[in-house]
């Protein structure tokens, strides 16, 4: 009886009735809470990592970041060697990957004949989809022996006067990690850059070509300047990926704590070292020190993403103005 009353009541009301609003309130509320949940989640990640690292922070202070040590027996820990390894591997990988990725992006956006453009784009994206553990397995069992037997000695004998290219004895070394990271960030930078190059207005390109430039001059004079900000953001995102990659690097970099200028010696990175410790969390201080390293990684990743977003937004605004 009451329900019948309710329905007739609703039917008589204008359609801005309260029940209608209730549904809206509900959906907006639930969806809003979910969106708020994202912020809470990021905050929770930061808080939990800081909380876990507190013991190590109070023991070692800020000097943990550059202190070179990992001695569970004497309780002496520091992230210095891992931070060094992370810097070397990710910057070298970025240095190698960027020109190759730009070449791929130019090929896919400007040069490729129609018939092979689609398939090659799909293949490059497939390379990005291969899991890092598979790349690591391949790097460890296929790539590392090849590099050890052929590439490393060749580089050592031709460029050995540079201390970077020292004597190679193991297949698992910093150089192998650099190659693996290069392969992993290559498709990321390439596919973002491809989209940027495709977004360059056709009239600008045609204008340049109409003035008699060659295709390369058009690319250098029109495409690159137009996409400059975006390419920088793509590089930063690739760098972020390289800094955070744990599994593939853990498999191929060997395990060495200490600083060595030789690319052909084993090394380690922050992320890889955390991954290698998963079965051997010994003392609370060791666990806390790993958390401290995770905190360094977290800070890196947040900075990297904010800077990339800032560049993208600024570039988008500038392009909006110039149109």
């Amino acid at each position, binding site marked *: 009886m009451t329900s019948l009353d309710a329905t007739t009541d609703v039917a008589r009301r204008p359609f801005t009735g309260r029940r209608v609003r209730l*549904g809206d309130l509900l959906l907006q509320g639930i969806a809003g809470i979910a969106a708020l949940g994202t912020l809470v989640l990021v905050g929770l990640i930061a808080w939990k990592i800081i909380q876990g690292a507190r013991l190590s922070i109070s023991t070692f202070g800020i000097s943990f970041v550059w202190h070179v040590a990992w001695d569970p027996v004497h309780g002496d820990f520091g992230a210095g060697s891992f931070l060094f390894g992370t810097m070397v591997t990710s910057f070298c990988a970025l240095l190698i990957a960027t020109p190759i990725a730009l070449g791929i992006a130019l090929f896919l956006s400007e040069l490729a004949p129609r018939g092979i453009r689609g398939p090659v784009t799909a*293949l490059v994206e497939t390379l990005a989809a291969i899991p890092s553990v598979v790349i690591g397995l391949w790097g460890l069992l296929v790539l590392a022996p090849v590099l050890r037997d052929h590439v490393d000695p060749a580089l050592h004998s031709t460029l050995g006067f540079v201390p970077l290219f020292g004597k190679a004895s193991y297949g698992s070394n910093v150089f192998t990690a650099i190659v693996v990271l290069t392969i992993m960030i290559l498709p990321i930078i390439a596919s973002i850059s491809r989209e940027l190059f495709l977004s360059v207005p056709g009239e600008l390109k045609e204008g340049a070509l109409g003035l008699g430039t060659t295709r390369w001059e058009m690319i250098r004079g029109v495409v690159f300047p137009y996409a400059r900000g975006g390419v920088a953001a793509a590089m930063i995102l690739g760098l972020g990926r390289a800094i955070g990659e744990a599994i593939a690097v853990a498999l191929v970099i060997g395990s060495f704590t200490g600083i060595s200028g030789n690319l052909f010696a084993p090394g380690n990175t922050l992320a890889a070292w955390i991954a290698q410790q998963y079965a051997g969390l010994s003392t609370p201080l060791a666990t806390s020190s790993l958390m401290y390293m*995770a905190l360094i990684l977290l800070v890196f990743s947040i900075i990297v993403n904010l800077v990339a977003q800032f560049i993208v937004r600024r570039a988008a605004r500038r392009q909006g103005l110039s149109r």
Partner: protein
Amino acid sequence: MSAADLSVLQRPNDRLRRRRLVNRGMELVAWLTAALAVLILGVVVFSVARRGWSALNLDFLTKSQLQFAPPNVKQGLANAFIGTFIVVGIATLMALPFGILIAIYVNEYAPKAIRSVVSLTLDVLAGVPAIVIGFFVFGLIVISHGQSAYAGGFALAVLMLPLVARSTIEVLALVPDSLREAALGVGAPRWRTTLGVVLPQTIGGVLTGATLAVARVAGETAPLLFTCSLVATGTHVDPSKPLQTVPLAIYQLSDSPEPADHARAWAAALVLILFILVVSLTARWLATRSRRKIAQASR
């Protein structure tokens, strides 16, 4: 005419020839880099396929791992396949509704300022290294409750969330406003417009995003190391205990000195790659279909 005049005329030609040469050279370099990318992919897939194929047999797919197996006993990774299915399933159940709701809020309700804050947060979340997310879940759940498939699934869900939310935001933005206006115009309330008119239009795109996210997290090892790795022997399906997963099995087997273990790691890698390829291709196909559908609806 004197000879000097002719040389003046020829100089621009020389320069043109050099410019064309540089152009040719750069085009060649671009072709070579693209060839290199395809070559790398080919070499990786070929090595995995060649080494994995010989170890891929019925026993591999149907038998489980044993802790201390005598060398002549046949082992497989059935437990890892089941475990990955369960852990990724848990992750999807958590991340999918949450992600869709976020996208609805961002696209249908949020004021502009909040929209940009949420999407920036999603970008930051997507950029957090997987190993850090695993370690976060370790601190949040594992320290107090121990490892479990739930903890592993939660870690993967954190990884999936920004992927699902972002792809859903993108497809929701594709739905033309005329549809929303039509629904609101015939008196439908906002929530019915969103759930009954806008969302069904995007179902293909949402599924595509979800499928790609599943393909992505199914291969993730790092979030599971600290949350779902200390696996007991034998096959069990109890998600309150840690379950073996395919990527973790590859990681552990690749560290082993036994060639037989390497063979199984390759076979597992082959299965994983095939799964990811099939799923991504299916998702792409769904994507083109749904985009066509939205385009038709907007006409």
